[in-house]
């Protein structure tokens, strides 16, 4: 009589070979959840526009937020306490805000190049703003400590063709 040579079904594998990839999958799912939690859960990650932070000033008092806009010419370098700082006026869609940014500004920070600032509203008039040509001097300023540059997507060299740099008070 011939022996049954049909390969027997594989025994269910519950060894380390199976546990490793499953642990990796669980770890990756946890990482995805963590990314979503950090991204969606932190309100300071939302970018406001300048007109929004002015409109919602009362609601935003004592809250940290991010705001995107364009620095105008007339940046003043100074110190706050022992730290270096820059004072400037920042705008978007014709709405202006005075800013005191503590710490080193971004390497590419300059008038006409949009930036995203992180900080909070302060109700105070600073005499230093008198020297800024476009300052609002409305008794409020933004105190910020984190700055990133929002670079545009234009790589053409001809200055006549630069049309979409948000420049508010600056003519394009």
């Amino acid at each position, binding site marked *: 009589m*011939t*022996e049954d*040579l049909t*390969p027997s079904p594989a025994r269910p*594998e519950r060894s380390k*070979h*199976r546990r*490793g*990839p*499953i642990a*990796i*999958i669980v770890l*990756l*799912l946890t*990482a*995805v959840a963590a*990314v*979503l939690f*950090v*991204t969606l859960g*932190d309100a300071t*990650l*939302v*970018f406001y*526009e300048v007109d929004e932070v002015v409109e919602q000033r009362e609601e935003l008092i004592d809250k940290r937020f*991010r705001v*995107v806009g364009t620095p105008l*010419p007339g940046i003043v370098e100074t110190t706050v306490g022992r730290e270096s700082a820059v004072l400037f006026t920042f705008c978007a869609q014709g709405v202006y805000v005075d800013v005191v940014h503590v710490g080193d500004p*971004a*390497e*590419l*920070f*300059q*008038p*006409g*190049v949009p930036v*995203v600032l992180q900080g909070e509203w302060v109700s105070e008039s600073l005499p230093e703003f008198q020297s800024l040509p476009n300052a609002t001097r409305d008794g409020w300023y933004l105190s910020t400590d984190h*700055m*990133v*540059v*929002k*670079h*545009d*997507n*234009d*790589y*053409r*060299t001809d*200055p*006549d063709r*630069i049309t979409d*740099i948000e*420049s508010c008070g*600056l*003519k*394009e």
Partner: protein
Amino acid sequence: MSAGKMLKQNQGVTSSPKSRLLGFATLLGLVTLFVFAFFLTDPDVRLHPTTGEEIGQFDAVRLLYLHVPMAIIGPYLAPLVGAVASIGYLIKRTPWWDVTAHAAIEVGAIFCGLVLVQGSIWGRPVWNTWWEWGDVRIMTTLILFLMLLGYLALRRVVADEHKQARRSAIVALVAAINLPIINRSVEWWESRTLHQKSTLSELKIEDLTFFTLMMGIVVFLMLFTWLVLHRFRLGWLEKESLKQEALTAIEERRAVAVTNEEETS
């Protein structure tokens, strides 16, 4: 010619005369691209129309000649090929589609990881940050990268060949849902996100800069094709080898059984 016959002809080697030619052309293209990107093109410097000051990315722009092509492949083309091949597998249930999906996604995961790392290196001088949790494109690309790694981990879980291929195909399709979100994120969240909008779709690029970027895209497409081709052939050889091992084991058991039978009779 079937993939199996092709590999038999090549005696288990993953290269062929045509793939060697493609590999050589890709290598030549990469060297040329590096020369154009890092030596022949100018840094990104423009004069602001009003302030007259120099603005731009300066030398950091050179990284974009590599970043954009990698970004077209890692977070778009490779997962798209993987998703199409996965649909092919779910309809046809043949290993060719499964091996193709696996090859594309494995190469795509490498490109996706490189895009995140290289984008971070570019972001430091240009954006003033290594990493930006609030940027929708970075976050959606990171989620895609983790899902591609999940796909690859799932393929290592010991299971029945068809069950494994079916599960993997479903994960590839779920990952592909992210692709249009990554692509449109800079439009949908234009004023809420840091990433710049597409330069190519608005053609805000010209002359040698444009030429170098297009060359980068062509060269990286060649590299992707070459890598996927070889990964596909390797995957096919692995499948053939497993099949061969199983057949050899059955033959050996049969031979032992026949010998035992002869001895007892």
